[in-house]
Structure formats: structure tokens, C-alpha cells
């Protein structure tokens, strides 16, 4: 932990140095009030936003005394709303009647009794005004006043809420998060109608000023964890936050571990579940991926459908996923170790089959495995990166390269093709660990080629030691197995039906112990 903080401090120092020049000007802006004359305002803003062709200045003269300046970014604000709800009432009001006595300031008058729009605020300094222009509000400056009105007429931006491509479910809600932070928060509020659902907004990124939101349910999430999240987020000093992945890397407990200690999801229902378990979510504007902490190993084999379906199927699927996880890590290396080091343990008939398929292959089984695995990884990567329409031709080429042709040309054996295929299939079963297994597979292969089973065993032990050492926000990564937390085993490899899940996950140290719903459900059953 000390380690971590130290490095964070270093990063902070570094980024502070980088930005020192900007900071000075920032400070000046902050202190600067809004000039009374709109001409001064205009020249000031033109100065700040020089070469910003999409910034619109609109000057309105209602009568000789009243001059207004509206400033906004083209395309960023909803022009219809601006015209109908803001401009027209103002124009109507001031052109029809004479301004009333000077008892009220014009800005207050506009704010309180003229404008229809209900999102309207006042500001007194240029810095805040600039910030609001940047985040898509329209700014209304009034000649002769040192206050500006911020009118929230942000046009809805980005795509519609749709089903996420990365986390497809057969059963359950299909809504996924979008890039817009407010939309995402709304999606969540829709699911958890509870005032205890807290959203703490902060701003990260010196240049991007990205809105980040810490979300948790007060009373369930452990206060210490929430505080830790706040502290860690506060320490981030960076130019830009373009995706929650930036935050993820800053707040991970282990900087070098292959295993993710921060989870992410695109699905609203999954996130709601995580929050209700006592986790803390971090929303980040501009990305549909919401990250959750603490993230434990067991979560990698959990899926949201698990809770919507019968517990028996879930148990079976969980075991299947565990098997797939092991297979995708170990199968190629086990094969190489068997063929190269321990042919004695292969049953005779199988050995003949293997030997026959290996006959005439110019490479050692290790080289063959590396070749095929690398080819597969390239194919996978190409599949992710390439434009969609090329997909089909790529998959055809891939199938031919990986399958028929490689075997026919005598580059790879039949069996190796099968093994790599099985490994590939299995690696897709546990999506959160795809990256980790991808690298681990190569390390395991190297170990197998070096020492056979012994090497694999050695590495497996090393990986387990590493896993047991990992923490995610103070929670042991391998919980509930190590340390053994008996009540939490209900939702591990073997799952119980949802009505029997009456305690909150103990490993997350919830503020209140039991899930009300579970208990009530039980009572209902007894009454029946």
C-alpha cells in the first residue's frame, strides 16, 4: 500500500510540473469577474476561444437599454429549446412592456419570471462561464451586469440506449450504458429507486475535465471502501480521461498483476447487482464502461444471468466456466509437456494417434504450439480491429489457415489444431480473464517446454501464490475461498437459489448484514 501511495505521489508531482504553466493562467481566470460591458465580455471570450469557429455569439438588442449576449457552441445546444424557451420569452417580455422599476436586476428577472427553462443558474466569474460553455450550456450575458446566466439547453448527444455488444445475455434486461454520464445515472436510478443511492460527482483530467461519478448505496457499501475510492480518485492527476480504463489503471491495487482487480461492465442490471452487493461503482463520462470495486476472482466466472436462472443450471455453468478457465490456461502446455517429456503417461493407443499426427511435422511440439497460438491470437485481434464487412472473409481465411491448410502442408498436426481450437473456445467462456489467460498461456507453454509437468506445477503454484497475495481495495482477491468465508460460498462455485441468498456478501464487509428481500421472501413462504 505504501508503495502505491508513493508512486501516486510521484505521478501527481510529475503531472503538476507539466501543467504548471497552464495552472497559472487558470488561477488568473478563476479570480477574474465578469466584466459589466458585454463588449468586454465578447472580446474576452473571443480571446479565450480564439480559432474556435464553432462558437456562436449572438447579440440581441431588445430596446435601447437592454443588450444581451448569448454564447454557445454550435451543435452542442438544443437550438429549438434555446429559441422557444429562452429567447422568445425574453424578446416578448422586453419588447412589449417597458422594463419595470429597478427594484429587480434584469438577470434575476429573467431567471425568475421570464425564461421557461427550468435549468438556469447564475455565475460571477469568467472561469465558470467558460467551463459551462465547454460543457454545452448556453451563456447569457447582460450588458451592465457582472453576472451571467447559465441556461441548460444541452442537446441530447450520443447514441441511444441499446444492447451492449460485449455482454450479451439470453435472459435479463438488454439495456446497456451509453457514453453520456447522465443517461447512465438515470438508467441506474431507474433500477434502484432509493435515496441511499449516492452519486458523488468529481472532475478528473486537467485538459478534458471529465465528469466522474462515485456511486454506492449508503448503508450497504462499506464506508471505508468508499473513502478509499474517494482518496484514490483524488490522487489521480492526469491530462485526459478518455475511458474508465484510465481510472482503472490508476486505482488498481497491483500495478503489474495480469489479473484484473477492478471490474467493468456495460450492463445496467449487472451494475445494479454489484452495487446491491456492497460494491462501489465509478461512472466516467464518455464511456459506457462503468468500473466496480472491489473486484474479486470469483466475479470473473459470475454472469448476470446466473441469478435469473435456476440454481442448478447456474452451478453447472459455474463449474463449466472454471473448467474452461483451467483448460484455456493449461491445455496447450499440458499437451506439450506430455508429448515432449512424459510420453509414458499417454495411453498406448492415444500415443500411436498422437505420434501418427506428429509424423513429418518439422517443428517440436512447443514451436508448433507457439506458432498456432500466435496465429490464433492474431486472427482474434484482426477480428476485433478490422472493419465489420471484412469479417466474413477473415473468418474463412482464418479457418483455412488454422485448420485444413496448416495440417495439409505439414506445418501443424491435426491434434494441435484441435487443442488450439479447444483452448480458444474455452478462453472465450471467461471474458474478464481473456487478456490474463492469453499471456499466461505462453508462460505456461514456456514452462512446459522447459521442465515438463514440473514446470507447469511450479508455475501453477506461483500463480496461486500471486492470487492469494492480491487485494482489491483491501479485500482478498481469492475470497470467499481464501480466507474461507462460509456464508459467501452460496454464490461461488455452487450456488443456491436466489430466495436462499439471505446474507449480503460478507467478504465486502457490508454496513448492514442481511438482504431484506431474501428474509421477506422466506417469511412469505412460511405463511403459505
Amino acid at each position: 500500500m505504501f508503495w502505491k501511495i508513493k508512486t501516486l505521489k510521484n505521478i501527481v508531482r510529475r503531472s503538476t510540473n507539466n501543467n504548471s504553466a497552464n495552472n497559472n493562467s487558470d488561477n488568473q481566470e478563476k479570480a477574474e469577474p465578469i466584466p459589466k460591458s458585454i463588449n468586454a465580455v465578447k472580446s474576452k471570450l473571443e480571446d479565450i476561444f480564439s480559432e474556435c469557429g464553432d462558437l456562436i455569439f449572438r447579440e440581441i438588442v431588445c430596446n435601447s437599454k437592454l443588450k444581451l449576449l448569448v454564447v454557445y457552441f454550435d451543435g452542442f445546444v438544443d437550438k429549438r429549446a434555446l429559441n422557444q424557451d429562452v429567447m422568445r420569452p425574453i424578446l416578448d417580455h422586453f419588447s412589449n412592456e417597458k422594463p419595470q422599476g429597478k427594484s429587480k436586476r434584469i438577470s434575476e428577472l429573467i431567471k425568475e419570471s421570464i425564461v421557461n427553462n427550468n435549468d438556469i443558474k447564475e455565475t460571477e466569474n469568467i472561469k465558470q462561464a467558460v467551463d459551462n460553455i465547454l460543457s454545452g450550456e448556453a451563456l447569457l450575458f447582460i450588458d451592465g451586469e457582472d453576472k451571467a446566466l447559465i441556461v441548460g439547453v444541452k442537446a441530447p448527444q450520443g447514441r441511444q440506449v441499446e444492447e451492449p455488444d460485449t455482454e450479451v445475455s439470453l435472459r435479463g434486461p438488454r439495456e446497456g450504458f451509453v457514453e453520456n454520464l447522465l443517461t447512465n445515472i438515470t438508467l441506474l436510478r431507474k433500477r434502484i429507486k432509493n435515496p441511499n443511492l449516492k452519486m458523488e460527482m468529481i472532475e478528473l483530467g486537467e485538459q478534458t475535465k471529465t465528469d466522474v461519478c462515485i456511486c454506492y448505496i449508503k448503508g450497504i457499501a462499506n464506508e471505508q471502501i468508499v473513502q478509499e475510492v474517494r482518496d484514490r480518485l483524488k490522487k489521480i492527476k492526469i491530462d485526459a480521461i478518455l475511458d474508465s480504463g484510465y481510472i482503472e489503471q490508476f486505482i488498481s491495487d497491483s500495478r503489474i498483476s495480469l489479473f484484473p482487480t477492478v471490474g467493468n461492465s456495460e450492463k445496467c442490471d449487472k451494475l445494479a447487482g454489484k452495487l446491491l452487493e456492497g460494491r462501489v461503482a465509478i461512472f466516467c463520462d464518455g464511456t459506457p464502461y462503468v468500473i466496480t470495486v472491489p473486484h474479486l476472482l470469483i466475479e470473473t466466472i459470475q454472469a448476470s444471468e446466473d441469478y435469473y436462472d435456476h440454481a442448478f443450471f447456474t452451478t453447472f455453468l459455474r463449474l463449466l466456466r472454471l473448467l474452461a478457465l483451467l483448460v484455456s490456461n493449461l491445455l496447450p502446455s499440458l499437451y506439450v509437456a506430455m508429448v515432449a517429456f512424459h510420453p509414458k503417461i499417454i495411453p498406448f493407443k492415444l500415443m500411436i494417434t498422437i505420434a501418427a499426427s506428429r509424423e513429418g511435422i518439422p517443428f517440436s511440439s512447443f514451436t508448433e504450439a507457439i506458432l498456432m497460438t500466435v496465429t490464433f491470437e492474431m486472427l482474434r485481434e484482426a477480428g476485433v480491429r478490422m472493419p465489420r464487412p471484412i469479417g466474413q472473409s477473415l473468418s474463412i481465411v482464418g479457418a483455412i489457415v488454422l485448420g485444413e491448410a496448416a495440417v495439409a502442408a505439414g506445418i501443424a498436426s491435426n491434434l494441435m489444431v484441435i487443442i488450439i481450437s479447444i483452448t480458444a473456445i474455452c478462453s472465450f467462456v471467461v471474458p474478464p480473464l481473456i487478456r490474463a489467460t492469453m499471456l499466461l498461456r505462453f508462460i505456461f507453454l514456456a514452462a512446459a517446454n522447459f521442465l515438463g509437468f514440473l514446470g507447469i506445477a511450479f508455475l501453477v503454484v506461483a500463480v496461486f501464490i500471486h492470487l492469494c497475495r492480491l487485494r482489491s481495495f483491501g479485500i482478498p482477491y481469492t475470497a470467499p475461498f481464501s480466507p474461507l468465508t462460509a456464508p459467501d460460498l452460496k454464490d461461488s462455485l455452487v450456488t443456491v437459489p436466489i430466495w436462499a441468498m439471505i446474507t449480503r456478501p460478507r467478504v465486502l464487509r457490508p454496513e448492514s448484514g442481511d438482504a431484506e428481500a431474501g428474509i421477506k421472501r422466506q417469511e412469505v413462504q412460511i405463511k403459505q
Partner: protein
Amino acid sequence: MINRKDKWFLSTAMLAVLCLAVLFLPGCWNNRDLTEINIVTALGIERSEDGKILVTIQVVEPAAIQSTASGKGKGGGAQPKPVFVLSYEGETVFDALRSMLSQVDKRLFLTTAQVLILGERLSKEGIVEVLDFFQRDHEVNYEMDVLIARDVTPAELLEIENDIDPIPAMYIKKTVENTVSRAKVKRTILIDLIKELSKSGRQPVLGQIAKAGKKVVRTEGTAAFKNGKLIGWLDPYATRGFLFATGKVKSTIVNIPADGGKISMEVIRSNGNVDVKLKNGKPVKLIVKVNLEANIGEYEGERKKVSPDYLHKLEKIFGEEIKKEIGRAINLAQKKYSSDIFGFGEQLHKFHPHYWKKVENNWDDVFSNLPAEIIVNAKIRRTGFIKNPIMKER
């Protein structure tokens, strides 16, 4: 207190030392690919006339096996031979096997050997010496079947190739397995043979293999040993008697004469044990006790109604038949070979160790002169789907 950096360095150093230990401590960690070994499926050992050891190996060509398995019936073109057989003469087994490398391309891999065939001449001169290598070498499969070639050299047997199984060694192994279910051969795997050779009070008995035709082998009968040397053969019936007595019959067909015809009894359960009866501290009688259950498998006798009384009568005849077979085996062991293959001595060793100490060295003589009592308790359980044979209604 150690500071963090030192601690980190220490733990890394420890880990490195442990890794090194792992590298050097284990025994064998050779990286040898499957394509770099010759898969030996059978071994034959015979002593040549000038006293040298002649080792024959049978090696499979995996690719050829695959093509014969998949290309059957396709015809056309010369099929590659699935196996090749190679013999080499050396001073010892190990010597011959190593010297053989001058004639083959890849290292010989012995773990896959399925059968070990010992030649008749070698067996007569003693098998203990050649087995030493098989215990000492780390690559030997202790579960391979050991057989004695009768009237034929191991090399000839290993060269038999037929269409039944592309790998002749597997073919031989399968025939042994089949014959075991007929109780006509004793199956001995290498580890058991090694154990039996080092045990006192029981002489080893090994399965026998002979050539039945140009392309067929027959595994029937057994070879009796005395002090590690082949002393004679047991024919299939004596073999079965021996197996009944030692309780190794799993199932078999016993034909008994009855009603002017024959009845085939299918033995479904059998257990037998041997014992020595002592009187005044001296052995007076050998006892063989066999309990067995059988079904009527086929009836070719005179048409007779099958009644309980009739079955009891059959049981008696059946028992007598078994008794005859056991008697034959005991007679051969006592009078002809003078070798205690049944393990009567072992019983004495177990239950009368003091007496055994005295008699151990000339037990075979003592054994040969003891009268034997054979008790067979045969039961007929079922008669198959029908009770009576086909007969006209009266």
C-alpha cells in the same frame, strides 16, 4: 528491522535459489518429442547357440498404422508396413538394445512395450539374469505380458503380421486376454513375475505362446519353472486344473460327458485355494479346495428331462471332471517336474514358518512325495433360457 528493499531482494534471492533447486533436483527431465522416439511394442529375448543374447524388437510406424486403419479397403498402391522387426545380438539385454541404435534412426522407447516374449532356450537356461535389466531401467513398463515361446523363436513370432490388428504386439496381447477368459493360459505381467521369482514357496508359471499357422499365434497352455528355469509345459487342461486350484479362473467352458453325449458347462464363479495338512509337525497331505458355480451352456446328450435330481447328478460328474484336471496338473507338478507351482510351500511359509525354515531347501522333494486330496464343490445355477432340450411331447 529490515527495510522494504532488502526484504524484497531477500525474497527474490530465495525464490531464485528455489528455482535452481527445482532445476537440478528432479531425476529426469529430458525434452524428447514423440517424433524423436521409436515406439517399441514388443520385445523378444532368446539365447543364441553361442550363449549370446538375441534381442528382437517390434517398432510401430504410427503414420503407417493410421493409413492402414483409415485406408482399409481402398486398395491400390503398396501400403507402408505398420511395424518393423529388428534383431540384434549382444552380450546382455542392455548391450543389445543399445547396439541396436546403430541400425535404427531414433531412440528406442520401451515404455510402450506390450509383450515380452522369452525364448525356449533362454528359459531353459534361466530367465532371472535377463530380467535384471527390466528392473533396473527406468523406462520399462511393468505391466507388459510375459510369455514363453514354444517350439519357435521370439523373432519368428514377432514377425507375424496379419489383418486382425495392424500392430502384432496388440494382437498377441488381445489373444492372451481372450484366453484368460477361457482359463487356458496364465497371464503374468512383468511385475508379478519379478515378485514371484523372489518369493520362496512358489515356482512361477508363465503363459505359453506358439505358432498356430502362418499368420496366427496361439496362446494356450503354460510353462512351468523351477528355480527360474523352464522345466516343462502344462497342456491346456492341466493349465486349467492349475488355475482352478489357485483360484484364478474367471470363466471357462468345461465339457463333461453325460447321457451318451456332451454337456458344456459355463463356469461363472470359482474360487480355489491350496493348503498343507500337518500332523505331528510334518506335512502329511496336500489339500486343494475348489468351489465353483456353473450354468449349463449347451446340452448335446440323450434327451432327458432336467430335474433337480438330474442336476445334482450332473454336478457330481462335473466335479469329477474338474477333479481330473486338477489331478493332472498336480501329478505333472509332483512327479514330472517336481516343482511346487501351486504355492503349497507359501502356505507353509505363512502359517508354519518354523517348519518351513527346516524344509525350505528340499521342499520340492518333500512336495513331490505327498499325497494330494482334491475337494471340488460344484454347483449348477442356471440352465440358460430353456430347461429341457427339444423333445417330442408324449
